[in-house]
């Protein structure tokens, strides 16, 4: 009798473990039945969305937000599957190699550019994946501690020019967007400052507040509450235009201040290549409606990103342009050999 209880308990644990791992895989096992050659009914079963990052990060949260919105317009559940690793290449490869039937889609982001440009992966994802839609963008912000001696960008640059190598600036992820923004900032202004790479914006902010580094180039969401509590001062941002958020509306862009560069981190969605045209069209429409949905838009703003939709063609163009820029700038500063 007791033995039975133990066995059922362990079985329960097993079932729970399996439920928690998310058996999203079974969506691939059922083939669409009675499929007519001329007519494709799409979507008639759940769709899997591959996220190439770990749960909880901004890419993951954006993906989940959009997945939820998509369900409304596609009429089928969208199951999120995290496939982190290899600086997004694991997820990107999985997406690239899955069946182009519209039942596997994935989130794509600037991280894939980094891995392509650094030749971690031989694949040029901009060409090998089918871009579907851009969903959100975010500039990077250059900030210093509020009690530092610099109140404006000009003061900061003047000091940096007089004291080459003395200012230490923090950013996250080597070869990523904050690194690119830092490199462009140094290159355009001609100043000499030392980069420190941190893992994660929070660690960089902690080092900034603790006075271990003098400046940091991070995303708006990393600084937001410290702007509100007036612990950090934002000197400039790398976007094309100012950020809507009231906390940042007084922060000028580098372009406004006469430094001609911009760097925008973007997050979008893609699918494997060679999908049937009708399927692609349906997906593109659903994404357009989702990203422009007021509720989804608000959720994206809450994540600290700027919602922005663009068509597959525009998105692909932007992807390729960013890729060229990364290749050029990182080669110039000697990061790519």
């Amino acid at each position, binding site marked *: 009798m007791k033995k039975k209880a133990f066995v059922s308990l362990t079985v329960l644990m*097993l079932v729970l473990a399996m439920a928690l*791992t998310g058996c999203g895989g079974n969506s691939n096992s059922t083939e669409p039945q009675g499929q007519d050659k001329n007519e494709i009914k799409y979507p008639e079963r759940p769709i899997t969305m591959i996220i190439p990052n770990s749960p909880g990060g901004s890419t993951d949260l954006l993906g*989940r937000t959009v997945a939820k919105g998509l369900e409304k317009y596609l009429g089928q559940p969208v199951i999120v599957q995290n496939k982190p*690793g290899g600086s997004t290449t694991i997820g990107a490869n999985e997406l690239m190699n899955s069946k182009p039937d519209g039942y596997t889609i994935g989130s794509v982001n600037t991280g894939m550019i980094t891995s392509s440009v650094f030749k971690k992966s031989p694949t040029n994802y901009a060409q090998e994946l089918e871009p579907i839609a851009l969903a959100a963008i975010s500039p990077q912000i250059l900030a210093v501690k509020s009690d530092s001696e610099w109140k404006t960008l000009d003061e900061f640059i003047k000091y940096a020019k007089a004291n080459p190598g003395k200012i230490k600036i923090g950013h996250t992820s*080597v070869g990523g967007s904050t690194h690119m923004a830092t490199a462009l900032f140094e290159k355009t202004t001609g100043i000499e400052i030392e980069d420190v790479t941190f893992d994660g914006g929070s660690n960089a902010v902690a080092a900034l507040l603790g006075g271990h580094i003098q400046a940091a180039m991070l995303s708006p969401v990393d600084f937001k509450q410290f702007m509100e509590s007036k612990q950090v001062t934002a000197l400039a941002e790398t976007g094309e235009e100012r950020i809507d958020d009231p906390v940042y509306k007084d922060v000028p862009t580098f372009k406004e201040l006469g430094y001609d560069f911009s760097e925008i981190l973007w997050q979008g969605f893609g699918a494997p290549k060679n999908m049937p045209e009708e399927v692609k069209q349906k997906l593109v429409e659903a994404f357009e409606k989702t990203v422009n949905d007021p509720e989804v838009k608000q959720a994206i703003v809450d994540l600290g990103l700027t919602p922005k939709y663009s068509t597959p063609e525009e998105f692909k163009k932007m992807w390729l342009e960013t890729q060229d820029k990364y290749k050029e700038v990182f080669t110039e500063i000697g990061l790519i050999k």
Partner: protein
Amino acid sequence: MSTVSSLLSGMAAVMTPTNFIASIIGVLIGTLTGVLPGLGITGALALLLPASYGLSPATAMIMFCGVYYGAMYGGSTTSILVNIPGEGASVVTCIEGYEMAKKGRAGAALAVAAIGSFIAGTMGTVGLTFFAPMLAKAALAFGPPEYFAIAILGLVLLFNISGKSPLKSALMVMIGLMVGTIGFDPMTGVSRFTMGIINLEDGIEFIIFTMGLYGVGEILASICKPEEQGEMMKFKFRDLYPNREELKRSLPAMFRGGILGFLIGLMPGPGMTISTFVSYAVEKRLSKHPEEWGHGAIEGVAGPESANNAANAAQMVPLLSLGLPFNSSGALLLAGFMIHGVAPGPMLMSTNPDLFWAIIASLYIGNVLLLIINLPLVGVFASLLKIPINILLPIVMVITFTGAYAINNSLFDLGLLLLFGVLGFILKQAKFDLAPLVIGMFLGSTIEKGLVQGMIISNGSFMTLLSRPLAGTMLKIGLAVLLFSILRSIYRAMKARKAAVV
């Protein structure tokens, strides 16, 4: 309003039916994910985040905090029962906990872990309530050079944690450090030791490494010893709970663990796991029963299991008072706060005191709930060991592999798990200790990042780095300890040789 009355009004806010149920759900989910190896706080919170959209901010926060605390309670279960650490902070519990289980004292170990978690968790929460803003400022004084120094000091103090052959331990530490370098260089992006395998690009997951070494290694070792079958399975219900002697020995360890855990837990990143190792080392040094260590000393469970819960509370200090998460689960908790429009940090206490105090109060209530839930579970879990080993082991293997897969949804990780399992098995048979290997692997990346970042901050001069008061002192202590232990072992070797000659 004083702290105490604010706290009381926070308690009242949590005791409303909705919030109370949210807290119960949170701690239950936390406990379950903690019990399943591999699935930690991160996995549980990630699953809950999207489900929480409809809840009010306070209810959602209370649930998240329940998960955050609950996962730390459950973590020790598999360490003790089957030698599989569910997360980094439970690795050290394997050493004595599993030995206790082998002697039929699994119930006592589990109960002591739960009681210690409660005591230290509450101590940590008290520290959080009264000293958070002050401590948070102190935590900021620690920059990359200090992390480097702490990690080095930790390595020097802990590498010979088992107290057996220092040479063998040093070798294990070196291999651990080397394993820790696999993946891309955090400063230059260059791939190291990846052999072109893209899955190794981000390095090896620490928990896969430990689950393989301890868990799978132990299962393989058990297969080789069929004659022991059935020996450890007989115990009465009364034996499930600790006796007076065991409780008496555990209590001081719990309090020491609580204090150590809270202080070390204030350190960013690896604080929680380091605190368990330090607590183990301290308890071993202070123990009146040195002969029991390595054979199931109960202090070796009580201390570290208390330390990790206090450290867990300490990690809430920078999160709540600065808005800075110091570890990955804290980062996820922060993400949970943010999507509900709550920005923890210096502003929260003044702009939204009701919510702030409700969160703090929920931590106290969560701790009590966890004790109530976990003590009866002790009997259930300990009874699992009555299952014949030929049925139990395959089940454990399946759970281990499922948990390992759940971390990254990666089949490659399962291959690594098996590889490290075989490695763990071989090392065990060759009488090498696994703890130094794990410590080396764990501290390796902190040491590397801290050194590289610290050197840039110190203008590339090691002397400048040494001149920083905190980092310099810690490094000098580390050097002194290292020299002392080398001299001591040379002296001992010479004495032994002399004795042999005579």
